[in-house]
C-alpha cells in the first residue's frame, strides 16, 4: 500500500506487542460498521497524474482576460515557487516549538514587517484566510475594542467580501449600515455622516470595487470623533503608490494578499493581510510572531500573545482561528522582496498606464463612457451600450471584464475591466477589434 512502510513481519511483531490478533481488533470500540464504503479502487501515480492533466486541460486558461474584481492575474517570479516549494517550509506545521521552527517564525516576522511598512501601520498578524475573513475579523476587533455593535460599510467595498461579512455576522448582535455608492463613487461625506456614537467601525476600500482611489482621512477622523475605528481594505500592489492607511489615520488596514505572489488557483488558497495600530494588538485575531531572546541572549522569534488564542482561551478567544496562511504569507514576503520598493511601484504604474490605454480605446466608441469621471487606478468601470453580460458572452476568445449588475442594481451595462502586466496593448487592440459592431 502506498506510503505505508510496514513489512508483513513488522505488522506481526507490532500486533503482538499491542496484544491483538489482527488490525480489526483495534476497532472493537466502534459499535457501528459503515453501511457501505464504495470508493473507487486505488490508481497508480501515473494514472492519477494523467487524469488531472486531462482535467486541467479542460479549463480554458488560454483566453485573454481582463477579469479582476479584486482578484488579479499577475506574473509570479519563478524564485517564489522555488523557495516556497522547499519542503522544509511546506511540510512543517504551526511553529509551537520555536527552537526548531525559526525558519517559519523569522519569515512570518519579516512578513509582518513588510506588510506593516507597505501599509504604514504599526504591526501585522501572521495572516488570516482571505481578504473577506480579514474584513470580518477586523470588524470583530473593532466591536471588542469599542464595545459597540454597528458597522458602517461602504457599498463600494468588494461585494464578494460584503456578502461573506453578512454570512459571518448572521448569528451575532451586530448591525450593518450600508452607505450607497453613486456611479461607482464612494460617498465620503455620507460615510462620515453615517457614523454615530453606536458605531464600532467604518469600513471602506481603496481603490474601491470600481477601481476608484480616494483619501479617507476625513472619514476616519469622523470615526475617531465617535470613538469608532476606521477600517480600510486595500489592493497591496497599488499600495506601493497610493496614500497609505497609516497616512489616512486608519486603525486597521486589511487586504486580500492574493496579488502578492499567489496564483489565482480558482479561488484559493490565498491570504488575508491584517495590520493595526499598536494599541489594538491584544484584541487582534490570529497568529502573531514576536521577536524574543533565548537563554543565551540570542535574538529569535516566537508565537506571541497566545493568551488571545483558542487553544488557551477556548470560548473567550479573540477568534476561532488556529492557523494562518503561513505558506501563502511566505510567498507574499518573497514576492515583495523580489520586486522591492521600485519593482512594486513600477508595476503599479505600468498597470495603471495600461488601464488608461484600455479606456482610451474603449471610449473611442461614442456609445461607451466611463461610469464616472473620478481618478482610477488599474481597474475601471465602463458603461456600455448593451448589457455587460451580453457583451462578455458575445466576445470570443477574450474575457473583457466583469459584469457588475449582479451586485449593483441599475448597472446592467456596466463592465469592470482590470489591467495587469499579464495583459498588453496588443491584447487590448485585439479585444477592441473583436467587439466588431457591438459597441
Amino acid at each position, binding site marked *: *500500500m502506498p506510503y505505508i512502510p*510496514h513489512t508483513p513481519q513488522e505488522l506481526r511483531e507490532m500486533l503482538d506487542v499491542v496484544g491483538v490478533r489482527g488490525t480489526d481488533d*483495534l*476497532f472493537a*470500540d466502534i459499535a*457501528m460498521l459503515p*453501511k457501505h464504503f*464504495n470508493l473507487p479502487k*486505488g490508481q497508480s*501515480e501515473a494514472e492519477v*497524474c494523467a487524469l488531472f492533466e486531462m*482535467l*486541467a*486541460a479542460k*479549463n*480554458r*486558461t488560454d483566453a485573454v482576460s481582463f*477579469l479582476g474584481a479584486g482578484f488579479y*492575474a499577475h506574473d509570479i517570479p519563478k*524564485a517564489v515557487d522555488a*523557495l516556497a516549494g522547499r519542503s522544509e517550509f*511546506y511540510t512543517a506545521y504551526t511553529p*509551537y*516549538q520555536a*527552537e526548531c521552527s*525559526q525558519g517559519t517564525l523569522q519569515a512570518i516576522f*519579516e512578513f509582518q*514587517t513588510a506588510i*506593516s*511598512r507597505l501599509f504604514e501601520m504599526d*504591526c*501585522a498578524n501572521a495572516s488570516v*484566510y482571505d481578504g473577506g475573513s480579514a474584513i470580518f475579523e477586523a470588524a470583530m476587533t473593532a466591536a471588542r475594542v469599542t464595545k459597540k455593535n454597528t458597522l458602517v460599510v461602504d457599498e463600494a467595498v468588494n461585494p464578494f*467580501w460584503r456578502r*461573506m461579512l453578512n454570512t459571518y455576522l448572521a448569528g451575532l448582535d451586530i448591525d450593518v449600515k450600508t452607505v450607497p455608492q453613486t456611479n461607482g463613487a464612494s460617498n465620503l461625506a455620507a460615510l462620515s455622516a453615517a457614523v454615530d456614537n453606536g458605531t464600532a467601525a467604518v469600513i471602506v476600500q481603496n481603490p474601491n470595487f470600481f477601481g476608484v482611489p480616494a483619501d479617507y482621512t476625513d472619514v476616519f477622523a469622523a470615526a475617531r470623533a465617535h470613538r469608532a475605528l476606521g477600517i480600510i481594505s486595500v489592493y497591496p500592489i497599488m499600495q506601493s*503608490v497610493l496614500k*497609505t492607511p497609516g*497616512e489616512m489615520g486608519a486603525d486597521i488596514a486589511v487586504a486580500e494578499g492574493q496579488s502578492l505572489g499567489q*496564483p*489565482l488557483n*480558482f*479561488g*484559493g*488558497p490565498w491570504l488575508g493581510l491584517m495590520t493595526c495600530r499598536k494599541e489594538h494588538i491584544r484584541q487582534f485575531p490570529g497568529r502573531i510572531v*514576536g521577536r524574543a531572546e*533565548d537563554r543565551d541572549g540570542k535574538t529569535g522569534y516566537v508565537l*506571541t500573545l497566545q493568551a488571545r488564542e483558542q*487553544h*488557551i482561551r*477556548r470560548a473567550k478567544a479573540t477568534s476561532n482561528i488556529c*492557523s494562518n496562511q503561513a505558506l*501563502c504569507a511566505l510567498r507574499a514576503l518573497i514576492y515583495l*522582496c523580489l*520586486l*522591492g520598493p*521600485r519593482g512594486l511601484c*513600477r508595476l503599479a*504604474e*505600468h498597470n495603471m498606464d495600461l488601464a488608461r490605454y484600455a479606456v482610451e480605446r474603449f471610449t473611442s466608441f461614442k456609445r461607451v463612457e466611463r461610469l464616472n469621471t473620478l481618478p482610477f487606478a488599474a481597474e475601471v468601470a465602463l458603461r456600455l451600450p448593451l448589457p455587460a453580460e451580453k457583451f462578455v*458572452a458575445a466576445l470570443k476568445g477574450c474575457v473583457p471584464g466583469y459584469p457588475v449588475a449582479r451586485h449593483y442594481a441599475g448597472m446592467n451595462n456596466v463592465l469592470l475591466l482590470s489591467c495587469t502586466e499579464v495583459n498588453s496593448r496588443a491584447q487590448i487592440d485585439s479585444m477592441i477589434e473583436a467587439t466588431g459592431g457591438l459597441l
Partner: protein
Amino acid sequence: MNTIFAKSAPGRCAAVIESQAPTASAMLPATLLRARPPRLPECSELDIVRHFTNLSKQNFNVDANFYPLGSCTMKYNPKFTEYVAALPGFTQLHPLLAQLGDAGRAQGALRCLYETERLLCEITGMEAFSLQPMAGANGEFAGISLIAAYHKAKGRSRRVLIIPDSAHGTNPASAALAGFDIVNIESRDGMVDPQALADAIAAHNDNVAGLMMTCPNTLGLMETHLPAIVRQLHDIDALLYYDGANMNAILGKMRVGDAGFDVVHLNPHKTFGTPHGGGGPGSGPVGVNARLMPFLPVPRVEKQPDGNYRLNDALPQSIGHIAPFYGNFGVTVKALAYILRLGGEGLERVAEYAVLNANYLKKRLEDVLDIPFSRLCAHEFVASAPEGMHALDIAKALLDRGFHAPTIYFPLIVKECLMTEPTETESKETLDAYVEALRDIVSRGRDNPHALAETPTTLPARRFDETAAARRIRLTEDMV
C-alpha cells in the same frame, strides 16, 4: 540570522518590469499618493534565494523529521500531489470564469469540486458537502452556522451548544464566534458522561441547539456511549456536530453519517495528506445529512444531465458565502488526488496502520510515561510526564534528539500531557528509535532534572523568554 531587511542595499533590485509608463504622479492627483516609497528590502535575487534557503534549514519538517504532533496528523505528503496542483490549468484559473456564460471555461475545475464532494460523502456517510470553508476552524464555524439556520427555519431560537471538555479548543471558540452560549460538560473516564449530558439537557432543554464532539476525542479515545448520546440529542431535535480533525482514525471503519451525526467538518491537510505549509493553508470541507442540505453555503456545484457542471446560487435558505468562491481549491485538488491514489482499500489501511502505530507506541511507552487510559487508543494517545518531570522539558529534549515534540498545550484536562500521534506513514524503526530516545530522556531526567531543563542545546535557538516577549512586544523591525 539577520533579517532580509538588514541585507538590503539602496538601489539594488531583483525584478523591475520594463515599462514606458509615466510615474504615478502623472496619472493621479498628489493627494491620493503616498509620501514615501514603502521601505521594503532592496536585494538581488541571489541575496533572496540564499536568505530563504538558509531560513528553511532552521525548520523541523516531516520530510526530515518524525513529527508526532498530536491532533495534527503530520503524515508524509506524497510529492505527486504537488505536481497535479501546480498544473497551470488549475493555478491560472480565475474563479469568476466559472460564473460567466455557461461555466464552459472552468469545467475541469468544477468537476474536481464535484467529484471531491461525492467522495467525501461516501467516506463519511453524509448527503452533501461544501468545500468552501478555508480551514478546520472555518469549517466548524460553517457547520455551527448550519445548525443555527436549521433551528431558525423551524421558527425557534436555540442559543446553547453543549461541548465536552475533551473537544478541541476551536470548538467553543467557533461556537462563540457564531453567537452561541457554550455549556461545558466534564468527561468521565475520558468519555462524554451520559449523565452529565442528560443534566445539561435538562437544565437548558428548549434552548439546546446541539452538541459538538471530537471523536475519537482529544484523549485519543473512541466514545463508547455514542448511540445513547445521539438519541439524547435527537430526542429534543438538537443536532450533533462531528469535529473531523481525528478522521484518520476511522477511515472505512465508521461513517459519522451512519452513526447519526448531522454535520461534520474534515481537515484534508490532516486526513488526506495535503501539506501543512508551516501553519496553513488548509481547508475545512463541511458535510451534512439531508435535513441540513437546504442551508449549505452557495454556490453549490451541480452535475447536469448532459454531463456538464454548473454552479447553483438559488438556495433561498442557504447561510450564504463562507469563502469568496469555492474554498482553497489548490488544497482540494491535492486531497482529491490523494484519495484517488489510495482508493477505498488504501484509506482503510490508513486508519488501520495509524491506529496500530499509536497503540504500538503507547504500549512500548507504558513503562516510560504515565499513561492515564489503558484501553486501546485510536490514532493518538495522551500520556503524562512521569511524576516530578515536566512535559515541556521532555518535549524540548526530544527536539535535541531530532524528533518533533508531541502536542503539550492541550488537552487541558490531562496534567503535563504529551499527546502523541505517529500516523500511518512512520515505520517501526522510527517508532522504536523514538521510544528509545524517550526512555533515555526520562532516565537521564530522573538523575539530573537540571540538565533536562537546559534542553535544547543543539538547535538554531535555545529556549525563549516568552513571557518577556509577550510583555514587550516587538512584532516588526520597527517596533522597539
